[in-house]
């Protein structure tokens, strides 16, 4: 579940610069796509946080929660920066978010989470 959500997050995340590029190249509708993408990515970010909570509870892995929380904070800031036209923040933060999402996806797929608890460890 968490892997699936994180992968969707990544796909949605990569869509955003595409829409921004379409918009700035002169297609006005690109802006609506970019806004819809922002809504979608924000929602996915929230869902991922929920899934990460479940993972924390069920298999005692905390890092996905903290990573998802960090991304949610970043995505929210990105949303506000975009609406405010603060491009100095919006552009580098966008790149950082894509990198962060990609790392979480890679970590989730590279290191399978334990099926159930093997040892008690406070991770993260």
């Amino acid at each position, binding site marked *: 579940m968490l892997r699936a959500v994180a992968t969707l997050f990544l796909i949605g995340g990569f869509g955003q610069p595409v829409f921004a590029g379409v918009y*700035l*190249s002169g297609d*006005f509708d690109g802006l609506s796509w970019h806004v819809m993408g922002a809504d979608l990515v924000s929602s996915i970010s929230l869902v991922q946080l929920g899934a990460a909570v479940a993972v924390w509870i069920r298999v005692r892995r905390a890092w996905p929660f903290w990573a998802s929380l960090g991304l949610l904070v970043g995505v929210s800031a990105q949303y506000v920066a975009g609406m405010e036209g603060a491009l100095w923040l919006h*552009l580098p933060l966008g*790149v*950082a978010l894509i990198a*962060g999402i990609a790392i979480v996806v890679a970590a989730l797929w*590279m290191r399978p989470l334990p099926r159930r608890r093997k040892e008690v460890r406070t991770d993260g």
Partner: protein
Amino acid sequence: MAEPISRRRLLGIGAVLGAVAAGGLALSAAWARRPAETGDQLVSEVPLPQAFTIPLPLPQVLEPVASAAEGDRYEMVQVETEAEILPGYSTRLWTYNGTFPGPTIESRRGRHVTVAHRNELPVPTVVHLHGGRTPASSDGYPTDLVLPQDWSETAGHGHGGHMADDLAVVTNVQREYGFPLDQRAAMLWYHDHRMDFTAPAIWRGLAGLHFVRDDVEDALDLPRGDHEVPLMIADRAFDSDGQLKYPSLDPTLTGEIGVEERFTAGVLGDAVLVNGAPWPVHEVDSGLYRLRVLNASNARHYELEAVTDTGRRLPLVQIGADQGLLAAPVRHERLPMAPAERYDLLLDLGELPVGSKVRLANRLGEGRMKDVMQFHVVRAGRRAAIPETLATDLPEWDRSEAVAVRDFAFRAGRMNGRHGWVIDGLPFDPNRTDVTTRLGDVEVWRLIADVHHPVHLHLVGFRVLSRGGGAPLPHDAGLKDTIALRPGESAEIITRFDGYRGRYLFHCHNAEHEDMGMMANLEVT
């Protein structure tokens, strides 16, 4: 993965990535201009005068040389002159009739005005009446040159971007511009619009005001006489001789076009001139004032606010936009203003004691650019009410009437192998028709900007339908002819292309952008 990566290494990688991301954001926060500013600032090489010491000059109103039933005739000479802008320095200017700003023309709606311009400058000129509903032959198309005496054709063709234009109507030394002025009362302005060299020509002083009055305005009993104050705001910089400084590639303005690479985004000065005087002071009474404000700067944006010496902010009551009166006043604490925009404002000084000072400040400026001018209340005035309803003749157009919806991207690009500015990827070419529309058609235009672009349409006024996908901003009210787009911003505008058929323009009114390609042809058929 057989062997999981050690926790220590993972934390290390995470820390490095986090540090890089944080460092990038911090770098951006420190380096990027907040608020954004499009252009690069020149630095004057002479000491600039203390603010609020020089009295505000008021441009003189030009008398017609002939008045008849069919209209008024004016004459102007475009001439180089010297003026004392900075105390103790004599600055060479290019002027209309020897003054900067040029003389003001006062006209009535529907009463024909003819202005005969005589070019005694060393370069060709073109006069455009910004905001005028003008037949194409008098609209000042950039290649409709008025050549100076003894102008040799070859001298005019340097290695710049000059393009042959078969449709150009070139005259020698003199040209009569005819303005029917069948339009709402508004403050227009006239300025040079020559192909490739508009920005330096305006910088050197070729700009003046032109008022249109009508019965709608008269009926409102707005402040008039010395309580109606025109304010032409323009930034400039000065070299070590007190001459105007400008980074032209060819200072004779005859050959290579454009400015030094660093100034591609626009030329900003470090002195604010109002009506040609640096940071002036204007003596007023404690009455109601009508300020007719024009941002005649090449590239600088302002965000105006009126602050008293006790730190109180007075509302700037907007009663009109580029193309005349609003339906109802809009009160602003701060008012953003892009190049070529005009605002018609009421400033109520009624509650201030005699002796008060009100600073017209610029929230977007840094250092001395934070100040624009000062009003000094020197006597008691008559209180006057601010009318709560204004004009009822504002045109309304609905999206459903639009026969075309067009998208235009204003962004950086290449022109003549150098950095420039383009509309939908193309730099200006007089021989290419970019938009063809039928006389009387209503259209919606969706304008998208990469950096600040004040977009101006000739011939028509428009209404702002939306900005950034949302509602228009308070200062988008009324009928406009120039709309300021901020970086990454877009807006939808609606207008009816009526008035006259012919070849017109739309362009970015950052004058440097305009010279470096950001202009396109609008053919009304």
